[in-house]
């Protein structure tokens, strides 16, 4: 999905995990996923390079849909649908 398309997705839950290192962002995502409904979208902000690889793998294992990652200055916006 292109960055423009990703930017246009309505986000139901924003998780800012930029202050933590691996596995902090993944654990923040895990905690927050329980607060949204199936079909809703979560955006995880992470400054941790490894998280952009971890979250897509985690989505596959848990049955969530990884939508894509937007690179910002110094951090990533990682989008997934429950």
């Amino acid at each position: 999905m292109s960055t423009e398309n990703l930017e246009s997705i309505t986000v139901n839950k924003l998780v800012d995990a930029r202050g933590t290192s691996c596995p902090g962002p993944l654990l923040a995502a895990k905690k927050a996923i329980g607060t949204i409904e199936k079909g809703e979208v979560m955006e995880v902000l992470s400054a941790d390079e490894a998280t952009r690889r971890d979250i897509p793998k985690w989505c596959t294992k848990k049955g969530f849909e990884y939508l894509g990652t937007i690179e910002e200055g110094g951090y990533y916006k990682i989008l997934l649908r429950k």
Partner: protein
Amino acid sequence: MNLSFSNASSQIYKIDKECDKDHILIYQLSQQDNWNLCFAQLALTCEIINSNLYKGKMAKKLTLALFSGSVDKLTAAGVILGGAAAEDMDVEIYVLLQAAFAFKKENAMVNDRVSEITDKKEDFLASLNRLNTPHWTEAFRTAKEMTDVKIHICGFAGKVWHGEKLEDFIDLADDICGIGEYMTSAEEADISLFI
């Protein structure tokens, strides 16, 4: 999940609970018309299979033989526990020898020993702080809150470090046990680690 239908059985219907988990086989005699009953049974069977799938495929098990009592390795253990927690794994930790020292109430928060690259200890500890890395006890606690983590103190290790009662250890510890329990648990594990 695939459903297969067959007319070849001598029974009105039969759902094979023992068949491959991804396939359910339904038999029906062609002269019978009892599909309602058949599907009621199917629903029950699906529930059983889903439950088995959950146990078998979702909740994998990690056993960790935790020997080290130094914060570098305990921190690494905390990172791995975080990964296990994110995936809802069941975790059994066996606290052996030097790790039992680190789990003693009076030691847990003040122990800052490292076991490797010891000449860079201050840099290492400062970096953990700079990166907002939780203390290993907090990482363990977070994992316990998020998934099923049981922490067992080896009875022998406890005695070595003058801790014979559960109360001698931080409240993360669930019980004091023998090596037999570890062996049983490790046999059932999908992943076994020694740190």
